[in-house]
């Protein structure tokens, strides 16, 4: 209850500061709309179905990208954590892929995969992959060597050691990577939509900015992305509390 009150208070302070800024500077709505202008625009976008039409597309891209990116990242991160050879072979490629700006890579992926949902999910998965893979690798290696030795002495197979010891002990770090990954997934979806899409919140931002000159609508789309990011982050934290506490 106290946490909720603090959050609401912080939100109220943010809105008051925002409103004050627009009043004091006298900035026109097409540069910085006041909060009530954005709220009114949000209601219209919700009422017409416009916001949900684009939000649904972005959420599906985020969830699919997260699923593909996180699953492959955990698998690769586990392999990297368990084998120095695999790490030496794969690391340069993984780091190189992470170093290339996704904004520059996205149009290429869009063309290679013929556009559509597949290309956008892959772009999203790519941006999610790195923090989760690295967190998994670090977590796997953090398993207590004495416990690992004990598992071996008890005749545990490598698979059992991974499933029963290394992955559970990697969970706190892995969830750290997931927290970063879910917020990056939101960015990934928008970047993917900017590379080529007909709908989604990234597309709505483009339309509002370049097509309609509707700055309040841009704010609505940005706020929706922020809410999705906060929601997903909260979901991961909530799962983390349950899983890590019981592991």
């Amino acid at each position, binding site marked *: 209850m106290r946490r909720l009150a603090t959050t609401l208070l912080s939100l109220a302070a943010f809105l008051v500061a925002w409103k004050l800024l627009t009043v004091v500077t006298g900035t026109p709505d*097409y540069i910085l709309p006041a909060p009530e202008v954005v709220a009114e625009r949000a209601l219209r976008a919700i009422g017409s179905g416009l916001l949900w039409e684009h939000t649904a597309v972005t959420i599906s891209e985020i969830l699919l990208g997260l699923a593909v990116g996180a699953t492959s990242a955990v698998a690769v991160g586990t392999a990297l954590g368990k084998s120095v050879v695999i790490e030496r072979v794969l690391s340069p490629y993984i780091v190189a892929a992470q170093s290339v700006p996704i904004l520059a890579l996205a*149009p290429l992926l869009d063309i290679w995969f013929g*556009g559509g949902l597949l290309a956008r999910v892959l772009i999203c998965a790519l941006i999610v992959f790195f923090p989760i893979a690295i967190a998994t690798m670090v977590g796997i290696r953090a398993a207590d060597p004495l416990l690992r030795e004990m598992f071996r002495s008890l005749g545990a197979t490598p698979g059992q050691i991974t499933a029963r010891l290394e992955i559970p002990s990697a969970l706190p770090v892995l969830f750290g990577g997931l927290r970063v990954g879910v917020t990056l997934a939101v960015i990934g979806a928008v970047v993917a939509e*900017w*590379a*080529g899409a007909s709908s989604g919140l990234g*597309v709505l931002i483009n339309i509002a900015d370049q097509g309609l*000159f509707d700055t309040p609508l841009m704010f609505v789309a940005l706020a929706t992305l922020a809410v999705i990011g906060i929601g997903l982050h909260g979901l991961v934290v909530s799962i983390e509390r349950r899983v890590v506490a019981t592991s």
Partner: protein
Amino acid sequence: MSPRRLLLPLIALVLVLPGCLPSSSVSEPLRAVKLLLGFRPDVQFAPFYLAQEAGYFAEAGLEVTIEHSADVLVLVADGRADFGVADATDVMIARTSGIPVKYISTLYDRFPVALIGPAGTVPSDPAELAGLRIGTPGEFGSSWHALLALLEAGGLTRDDVTIRAYPQFNQVEGLLNGDVDLITGFRSNEPLRLEAQGMSVDLLTIDEVAPLPGPGLIAGDELLSSDPALATAFATATLRAQQAIAADPQVGLDAAIAAAPAIGEDRATALAVLRATVELWSQDGTIDSAVWTSGYETMRRLGFIDGSVPVDEMIDREVVRAS
């Protein structure tokens, strides 16, 4: 004559001489002006590069800084840039949305966007676009407006075709890949780039079907009311550069390469693009009322504007008239 007697006439001469010189040789401080162009440097912006390099802007009393932005209209309206280049159709939407910006001089008197496809596959009747896959940057800008205007002229809507968005403006690759049947593009640019890749193309242009006004110079209301002479000086210097390039496109290409060396990576294509662009330019910058009225009605029928702001509030004809 003593040195003292010589000194007095000499001082008098020094004081009087500047007043006798032609006014142009007196150095007055140049007025700093910021010009915003679209996303990235392009040979099609050659008039601005040439006006700067050849000193046309300076001779008009202007010291112009050229920058690129995706938000030209908003930044010009807000006074963070003095002038910009924008699509007339965007000016209509922006003005209707309450953004205080006006179209002051026509750069293109033929609408530069066309539908482009492999030779022999582009319908001449817009009604035959039904069922085709069309690549376009997205639901914004002159390409989108031209596409919808063409579809409307053919009695079609966006639901009668399959539209694929290329927000990075890489629809040429989509056409070369066969992902789409037609693309929207600048008729002086994409066709030449496709032909350079070995694809012969045909075009469906909009001028004869549903005329829309082309891109032009824009300025904010505040500047136009406080200093209309500045706008006239800028538009006149730009027009002078356009005329110089029309007479010899090579000077425009050289200026463009000097401003953005990457343009020189493919000189032949860049020069061909510039030559084709010159064909679309306005001769004198005047604003064509008939095309604006027709385009305004088309934009209203398509739902981009609601008709609440009349054409006369979107344009300022006096800037060019005063030149």
